[in-house]
């Protein structure tokens, strides 16, 4: 088996037993990137010199006896919204082209400490705005299973890089579905942790009340390894939970006998592609075969979550993107026209008008509109009240169920260019993922089959801070179906 196809688990065992060295593992990934990234465009930046330095340090730690850490020496990459000190970070936007962060995100530092070897920065929709990675200012990423199709978004680069074997895991962020959606489209595992489980410090902000950094991996066990390194309280992100993370490996393999799983009726209504529904219903039968108890559940407000999300999220985006003003960093007309006669507002307006892509502008405008005087009550305040109702729907559901099961995306992967003319049709991709984001609940996407060779994901949702329950259920399903073994032919 090629080294780049290893899981983290297998690579860790091989490194521990000295069958392979970190240098060999990293070299295999860098070669893989050289071979396939021209077709995929998952990477925006490959930092091989840095990577080789980290590889040497990791090998030293291994040689000195550091055996406990499962991520030591493992090749990975970061979605380009994670600030990496000294390494260009752009959020896939022209407005940050050339920006060199003077600090690293907490997640980056945690994974560095764990000894993971970062190979570079991964493509995404600019500022994480999108569901297909077509909104990247630097070109879209392609789906490794068929390069005429999108990898999903916004973390398309992260999902494609893991699916194609360029890295053994990647970091990503999920604000309304951006980890789960591309994971589903690329036949990999993607976890949106509970809001507040993983620090957002140093992550380029999109919607501060839902942004959740998380891992994308080949397998569920690998996902648990990575979450263990990412989770925890951080003084620099005041919403992180002081509740210590549990041991995600304990109980991973205990199975789902007696587990009560609810299927929200509202998610199996109009809009769900029949081919996707068929695979999700087959997954339900599989869970029953494994011993879980499955029943329908009504969650009356979740059908409104997309509308609420597309008011709340752009409102927060309009605030978070106000800092890109051509003054402190990023694209600036001051650089383009030094000593110009521009007034201060001209610097703002022209820098932002030139630097931002179309989708960023769309969302800033939507948010500013929704928050403006005369509309604030009708839109923003209304949406926040609906959000409370959505939270209550989840709380009520979890009184009778241990987990919820749902599709990830209403359709299988779509073609590049298929939804780019109609923003609203692109927004509808998020119909099954936004409610968990608004309520803060953790959710995982795990492979559940293929439609005409294109991957489909299955979503499981848990109560707050019960990621271990997600891993246990997803693991049982994954081991029974083994869809992850069907690698792309690229």
């Amino acid at each position: 088996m090629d080294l780049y196809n290893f899981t983290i688990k297998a690579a860790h065992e091989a490194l521990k037993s000295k069958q392979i060295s970190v240098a060999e593992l990293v070299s295999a990934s860098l070669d893989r990137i050289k071979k396939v990234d021209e077709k995929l465009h998952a990477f925006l930046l490959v930092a091989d010199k840095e990577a080789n330095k980290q590889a040497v340090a990791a090998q030293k730690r291994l040689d000195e006896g550091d055996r406990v850490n499962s991520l030591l020496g493992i090749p990975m990459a970061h979605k380009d919204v994670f600030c990496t000190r000294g390494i260009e970070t752009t959020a896939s936007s022209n407005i940050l082209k050339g920006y060199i962060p003077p600090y690293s995100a907490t997640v980056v530092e945690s994974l560095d400490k764990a000894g993971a070897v970062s190979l570079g920065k991964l493509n995404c929709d600019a500022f994480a705005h999108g569901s297909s990675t077509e909104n990247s200012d630097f070109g879209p990423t392609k789906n490794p299973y068929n390069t005429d199709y999108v990898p999903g978004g916004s973390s398309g680069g992260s999902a494609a890089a893991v699916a194609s074997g360029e890295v053994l895991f990647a970091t990503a962020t999920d604000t309304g579905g951006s980890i789960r959606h591309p994971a589903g489209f690329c036949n990999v595992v993607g976890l949106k942790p509970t809001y507040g489980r993983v620090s957002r410090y140093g992550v380029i902000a999109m919607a501060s009340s839902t942004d959740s950094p998380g891992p994308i991996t080949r397998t569920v066990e690998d996902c648990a390894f990575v979450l263990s390194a990412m989770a925890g309280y951080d003084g620099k992100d005041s919403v992180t939970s002081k509740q210590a993370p549990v041991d995600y490996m304990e109980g991973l393999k205990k199975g789902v006998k007696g587990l009560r799983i609810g299927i929200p009726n509202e998610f199996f209504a109009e809009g769900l592609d029949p081919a996707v529904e068929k695979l999700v219903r087959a997954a339900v039968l599989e869970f029953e075969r494994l011993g879980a108890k499955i029943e329908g559940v009504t969650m009356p407000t979740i059908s409104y979550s997309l509308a609420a999300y597309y008011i709340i999220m752009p409102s927060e985006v309009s605030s978070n993107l106000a800092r890109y003003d051509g003054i402190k960093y990023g694209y600036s007309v001051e650089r383009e026209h030094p000593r110009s006669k521009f007034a201060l507002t001209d610097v703002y307006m022209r820098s932002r008008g030139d630097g931002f892509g179309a989708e960023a502008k769309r969302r800033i405008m939507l948010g500013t509109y929704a928050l403006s005087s005369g509309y604030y009550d009708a839109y923003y305040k209304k949406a926040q009240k609906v959000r409370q109702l959505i939270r209550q729907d989840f709380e009520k559901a979890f009184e009778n169920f241990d987990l919820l099961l749902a599709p990830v995306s209403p359709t299988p992967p779509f073609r590049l260019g298929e939804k780019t003319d109609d923003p609203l049709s692109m927004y509808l991709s998020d119909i099954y993922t936004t409610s968990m984001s608004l309520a803060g609940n953790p959710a995982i996407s795990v492979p559940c089959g293929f439609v005409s060779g294109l991957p489909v994901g299955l979503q499981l949702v848990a109560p707050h801070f019960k990621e271990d329950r997600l891993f246990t259920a997803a693991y049982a399903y994954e081991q029974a179906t083994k869809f992850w073994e069907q690698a792309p032919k690229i």
Partner: protein
Amino acid sequence: MAISKDEIAKVASLSRLELSAAEQDKLASELSAVVDYFNKLNELDTSSVNLELSDSETTNRTREDIMQESKIRDRILENAPATEDGFIKVKSIL
């Protein structure tokens, strides 16, 4: 409910975005469609919903106000388009 060109211009000004006439036209129709979709929320009765902060949200996390050297001033200034004597230079405000 269509968003008028005047409203688009006003929102663009609030957002500090310079938009071409073509961009403004496109945004007027795109945003109108999205805002129409928002009206779905009027189907819900939210009159009993209280937007009070939860118990866990009512206390701020604070720390002692102690100055620390960041040691990264030069790296911060490297990213700025215009600097002078260790400051970021901006157009006059008054």
